[in-house]
């Protein structure tokens, strides 16, 4: 199962992650860590408006060092969420992330795969003046 986890797509995103870096004056930022391995991630969001005036993710970057699974997940997820409304972000589930990764995630690595989703959601909730109140992992 583990080898299947390390398909080329995952390794490519790990070696050349998209949206890595930081944003000056972000509208929201959140850092989180995986207590199992000490990996850290910080996400930065710029919030904009779509044609209908709904709040959307205008830009996103992430910082931090992690394993292949958490890095690839952050890289792909940050690509995915650009242009999504905040409501759409709130509605994202773990299964959406698993589907996006497209590889079988072994139970021991679920936390790694979901770290970026958790941080992104927490940043959105923080922006809305709310607390992330659901169990993402």
């Amino acid at each position, binding site marked *: 199962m583990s080898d299947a986890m*390390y398909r080329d797509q995952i*390794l490519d995103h790990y070696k050349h992650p998209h949206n890595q870096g930081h944003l000056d004056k972000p509208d929201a930022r959140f850092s989180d860590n995986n207590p*199992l391995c*000490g*990996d850290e991630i910080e996400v930065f969001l710029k919030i904009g408006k779509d044609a209908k005036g709904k709040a959307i993710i205008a830009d996103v970057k992430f910082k931090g060092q*992690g*394993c292949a*699974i958490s890095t690839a997940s952050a890289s792909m997820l940050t690509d995915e969420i650009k242009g999504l409304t905040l409501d759409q972000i709130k509605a994202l589930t773990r299964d959406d992330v698993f589907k996006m990764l497209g590889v079988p995630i072994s139970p*021991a690595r679920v936390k790694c795969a979901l770290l970026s989703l958790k941080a992104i959601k927490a940043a959105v909730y923080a922006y809305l003046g709310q607390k992330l109140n659901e169990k993402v992992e």
Partner: protein
Amino acid sequence: MAKQKPSNASFNVEKIRADFPILKRRFGKNKLAYLDNAASAQKPQAVIDALADFYANHYSNVHRSVSTLAMEATDAFESARETVAQHVGAQTEEIVFTRNTSESINLVAYAWGNANVKAGDAIVITEMDHHSNLVPWQQLALLKKAELHYIPVEDAGEQNGQLDADFEFPENTKLFAFPHVSNVLGTVNDIKGWSQKAKFEAPGTTVVVDGAAGAPHFQLDLPASGADFYAFSGHKMCGPMGSGVLWGKKEILQEMPPFLFGGSMISKVEKEKTTWADLPAKFEAGTPNAADAVGLAAAINYLNKIGLKKIHDHEIKLADYACEELAKINGVTLYGPNGNASYATGKNGKDHVAKKPNVEKAQNRVGIVAFNLDGVHAHDLGSILDQDAIAIRSGHHCAQALMERLNVAATARASFYLYNTQEEVDRLVQGVKRVKKIFS
């Protein structure tokens, strides 16, 4: 005290393996290579049988009833305490059963620490401490407004992975806590030397040793060790989960107030006040893990029959071999004194000088090898090795202060014990090479 009986039979790893049912397990087509002994050790049939026998034939609560059964259970529990006491050279009353090392250390922090540490006192710990021997002291220091000092870990040269011997204890040091063995680096600290130094430079210092990673490997004579407290966990030495020990000097334990209140720890309860039970019951509130204590005694007997010295020699041979082979892989960094200081480059250096393992150093380390592969996170390394049924640990090993010192977020760690084989080391090395290929 009962020294381990020197056995003439030579160390026979195949015979030992036959004692551990779990080693027969297959994961897919692979045999289990269990190289995560520093996290917890597997159980021999003798320990599993002792637990089953206690539950099947002698089970009752202890210390409470007059029935024959209750007597048998109590005897089994108390004789387990004697076995532990003899094993570490202590008096029986000095052995307090707990759940694990963490609870033993918390007991000292709450009971001794709360009564003895004041604002302005200093607590000294080390950069190589496990969170179990760090967080309790950090929190005590915060609570009491005491100073907290860390002895640095050397990260280069001959002293790589050792505590900084030039550290000077502040005069106001009240408590010094350090690990007998680092669970990441495998470094063995000289308990006597460090205790004497602490007590010389700061007279009156009380010394607490975290023995979780030491007790599985060394014959101990705790009263002569220089320490005042020594904590360890049964599960890391082939005993059951839930069997922990705190040894403390009798005079100190007698003076120390209790930690947990309740049944069994009292001598007399009146509506307004309570007098405490004698040692060690004073520190064992409530129904104890008696079965696990019985299992721990079985584990100690099992290990002593083989001989801790022989086990240590065996695991060091494996660690040396592992270091030698891993060092040949370009991009591997080894941490700490293991294998040979010359293998270990501390930071992410790549100068792997292959020297012959230095046998004289054998006493100064245990069979723990922490390493990293350039460009690969330890978690990914662990996941891919798991595919071949090679169980290692990857992460910060509950030692984030040390990770910070080593300037890494995580490492992989292979740790060896009595039942591991050279063939398993070969599988580990092949596995690491495979990881390198996947990530190249």
